[in-house]
């Protein structure tokens, strides 16, 4: 009799645990497409410090982090030059010339194989947003109409843009 009770309790527990299974949000079906959200350019109102800019541009170009000591030293270089935009330009040029590590830039063949993907990826990589249709069309034309336009030069323009100075 006692054994029978034990089986009954175990069976009930199994039933309860099955019934009370926690529902995950992912399990729920809303019948809408999953959409990845990006911030808009208009929400970028805070200026990056020189150190922040250095850290981010290095990471974007090399896909790895720069040490804190090097971020500090590179920031000092910007501080030491009157024209900050020129200072940033020289630092980017210096990074582009690096042989170890090499900057992670798509080859021109890869860029031209799927131009829309390259444009989307570049906007997401540097500006953390999707391009507008107008922006996309501008860069499509730039690439299609200029056979020598390289991914490196396009990356350069993004890294030097004003939007890239804000977050």
């Amino acid at each position: 009799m006692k054994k029978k009770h034990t089986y009954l309790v175990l069976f009930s527990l199994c039933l309860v645990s099955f019934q009370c299974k926690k529902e995950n949000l992912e399990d729920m079906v809303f019948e809408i497409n999953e959409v990845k959200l990006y911030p808009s350019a208009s929400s970028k109102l805070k200026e990056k410090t020189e150190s922040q800019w250095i850290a981010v541009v290095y990471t974007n170009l090399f896909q790895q982090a720069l040490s804190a000591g090097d971020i500090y030293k590179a920031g000092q270089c910007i501080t030491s030059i009157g024209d900050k935009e020129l200072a940033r330009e020289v630092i980017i040029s210096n990074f582009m010339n690096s042989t170890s590590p090499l900057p992670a830039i798509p080859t021109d063949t890869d860029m031209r194989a799927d131009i829309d993907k390259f444009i989307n990826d570049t906007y997401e990589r540097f500006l953390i947003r999707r391009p507008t249709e107008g922006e996309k069309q501008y860069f499509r034309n730039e690439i299609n109409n200029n056979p020598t336009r390289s991914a490196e030069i396009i990356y350069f323009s993004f890294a030097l843009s004003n939007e890239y100075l804000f977050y």
Partner: protein
Amino acid sequence: MKRREFIKKATLTSAGAMIAPYILPSGRLFAPTGTQIAPHVVLVMYAGGIRNQETVDQLYLSQSQHTWNPTPSLNVTGNIMPNLLSGAAPSSKVVYGVGTSGNTPISPILSTPIQSQGVLFKEVNAIAAGHYGGSIALLQGNTNLAQPLLERPKTPTIFEFLRKHGGYKATDTWFIGNSLTNSVPLYNHSGHEDYGAKYGANMFIPGVTFGNQGDQFLKDAKIYHPQNELSPMYKMKYFLDNSYESLTSNNILDTVGNTEAEKQQIKNFMKTMFQKKQAGTVIRPPQGGNDASTVGYALEVMKEFKPAVTVIKIDGPDVCHSNFTGYLRAIHAADHAIGYMWNYIQTQIPDMANETIFIATPDCGRNLNPNPILDNENNFRAFDHSDANTRRVFTLMAGKSIGNEPDKATGPLSSTSPLNTDAAITVGHILGIEQEMLNSGFLHSQSQSLIRKL
């Protein structure tokens, strides 16, 4: 065309027709009213706080050490600035030179001291007792009691006056600093909303730009082809900038407005400097430390850009807070560096030789009484800067169109003494914008061009 649209277009066209003749190629609206006295000015912030007692008074140790320690060997007077000032050197207790115990003075470079070529205002009123306030007072022609450290000057600097009212381009105006400390990298423009970065000066802090930091992050910059690579890069950048500006209400920060051609010239200059550094051929006065190096790079800038105004900040003598012997050596070494600079301009930069006016003035003086710190080498007393004696400084001026008045503004400091803020309006006067600066309302009420006092 609708009536309203027609009126709008007609109004804009008329306004454009009226304004257009006054917009000069440099972007300024009106031509400066004054004429240039000389096309180039070099202003040296002979700084770090130095006392008139050890400089123009030529009292050496007698009123710095002997007063507090009446040992006869310390009762020595004499001139330790043989390139700038006329006067015999101390005859004994020589510690301000080089070599063992500093007992060998550096040989003068100039056969005739600058005092004997130009004008020495012996008693000039420094209107701020600190380095940052004192230095930017020279650039602003005024002082601002609410000016905090590590913030841009509150009112326009001479660079901005020159660029906004005189139409000078960015590479006509240079500031060469000696350090990243003491807010020095903020000297090249103010934070004033009507002036600011877009009228600011170019600047290098050579010890950093061309130092270890520059070696790592600037030296190997790729040189892109100006037309094939840089031009399209800038074009795409401007597109991105316009796109961002149309999407945000954010205030885009201005930068020093170098044109693309000026940027290219500066980048090429930087490349050359790294090459010269590697080859050991950067211009440099034979003696001295960081101040000498700063002056050397300033000469490189002058040689390349022939600026209308070059401001050089040196501050080795500030070691006086704790090391009086070092202070004497720094004053002597700075004199050597400036003598070298003046000689170099006259002999090696043909465009600036005989066409330049030189002004040197300290940011502030130092105290009458010492602090308790004795230096290790000679047990000399050190001096800070905060009392009335801190207001006593000098201004030395020489060059094109400047006659010789070696003893101007002598006697005790008074309310009629020149101000060290006169430096700014003097530079403006030399370069043709005196009236615009006076009209701006930003100058000290007593500020006046020193040339008007000759």
